[in-house]
């Protein structure tokens, strides 16, 4: 199960929290708690999506906790982007870096929509936002990314 689901989940987590180390810790927590949580899993929709949602909630909670720490770390440069694969190396690094530059709110929506593949409504429910707000943030984030990448070419 780990083999099957861990990769995409850690990618989402990393993009959400910005830091590969935290993402790995969250992944660890997710799988430690999974056996117990499975008992409460109601067969509503796909398992992968459910697992993803739980992971996202973990990430958001962690980010809330991390807010104070980030004030302390204000002077520290942002962490390195995701480990890249051989092909399209430069592109991946660039994308990851540009993604990290988005504000938390916007990045979360972009990540959930584009990487985790959630619908606007699902994202809205998860984050407690109106669907319209989700769409706005999504398009704003994509526009920023698009302009930034045009500039990078």
């Amino acid at each position: 199960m780990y083999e099957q689901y861990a990769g995409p989940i850690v990618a989402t987590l990393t993009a959400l929290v910005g830091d590969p180390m935290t993402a790995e810790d969250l992944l660890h927590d997710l799988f430690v708690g999974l056996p117990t949580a499975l008992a409460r899993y109601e067969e509503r929709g796909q398992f992968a999506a459910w697992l993803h949602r739980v992971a996202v909630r973990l990430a958001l909670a962690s980010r809330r906790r991390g807010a104070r720490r980030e004030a302390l770390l204000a002077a520290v440069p942002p962490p390195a982007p995701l480990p890249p694969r051989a092909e399209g190396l430069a592109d991946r690094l660039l994308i990851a870096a540009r993604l990290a530059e988005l504000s938390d709110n916007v990045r979360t929506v972009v990540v959930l929509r584009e990487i985790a593949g959630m619908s606007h409504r699902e994202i809205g429910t998860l984050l407690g936002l109106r669907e319209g707000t989700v769409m706005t943030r999504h398009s704003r984030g994509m526009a920023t990314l698009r302009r930034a990448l045009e500039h990078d070419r």
Partner: protein
Amino acid sequence: MMRHLSDSRLLAYRDALLPPPERERVTAHLAACDRCRTRLQHHRHLTAALRGLADVPPPPGILERVLATRAAGGRVILPVDETPAPTTRRLMGGGKWLRRGALLAAALGGLLVLGQIPFPGHALRNGLRAVGENGRQVVKATFSGLRSGEQAHLIEMPSFPSLTLDPRRLHNLTARYERRVYTFGGDSLTSVDSSTTFSLRREADLVYISFAERGLEGRSGVTTASTLDARTLASRSRTRLEFFQIERKRRRVIWTSHDRWIDSLTVREERSVVSQGRDSVLNDPPTSNDYVLTPATGAPAFRGDRGTEIALMMATPLSRSWAAHWDQLEMIPSRTGLIGKARRQPIARRVQGRTTLDLPIGRVEVWEVVDWPRPFRVQIVNYYRTSDGLFVGSTTVRDPRAPRMDEFQFADYRLLSVTTP
């Protein structure tokens, strides 16, 4: 001609979220408008690239950690409700080893507690070790005055002792090392004593470390002193720091931080070197350098003063292969925090268990990285050139008459005391 399409309209079109009449209008516009068509293409490309970020293999080592945590009784409560809820995390603190530790402490009446950490394949050694006779590595540790609940673990490494500390419990810690270094020149053996004191002080969740070293005058006549202040933000439950004293003459310390337990480490090194003696012409004015080290999955990122000289090391876990270099970095701030032009001089490589040294003239350091709890080892070998043409180091000496490296081990260390007020 219609005005250009907004990004949100393009995205909705791409995701087939537009009602049919509008969709047709957009299609028609795209047929005629290069700019919007290109933009749509960019969005598609962007999405593909973002999806590509998800195409990563599951990170190694996590599964081991998960199993170990579960075996140690750790638990995590996941937020499975459909409404966002805060996570409660309860991890039992490895009950087994804490208890054993406490017992030992009681038995030894104030001597340091060391015990078994519940990770597979890893055991701490005792803090006391017999003194060898042939000048081989000696570390002797005596700890006194520990406040109840405070723990320090001594990990012995071939060259340098290191401490693992639990910063939540630690208020103050001072440790002093005395070291005697023998140098082999021609037919004579001389010894140089030096002592190192480091202390840690915790305030809230910042740990202040200061490191002071005095070289006592020995026959080579080198006296140096340096102070290193480091701050670490410990966001996890434990902080592990290892520091290696690398050069006798220039007194520079390179810190390694071990991934998930340290988010960032700021090091300010203030160094003043006073040296006298025939083989030393170092009269550096006092300098101060700031380093910010951020652990990353690849090479560490550094930020510091211009012209700062930093040694970078890269190692893979399990220490089957690593490479060591000297990098002279010109520090230039950038948005990603990774700075500078590096002129890289290779020092040594270890590939598949075979070590190759690419020695430039002058100083060389070679090392492997130890990680915790993943078991790979640390070993430090220092090479210097003296006026006799010998390479002399704190753990090895190489006699040019002898064809092999690592022929002698001659340094011994004593850790005298660790006290907490």
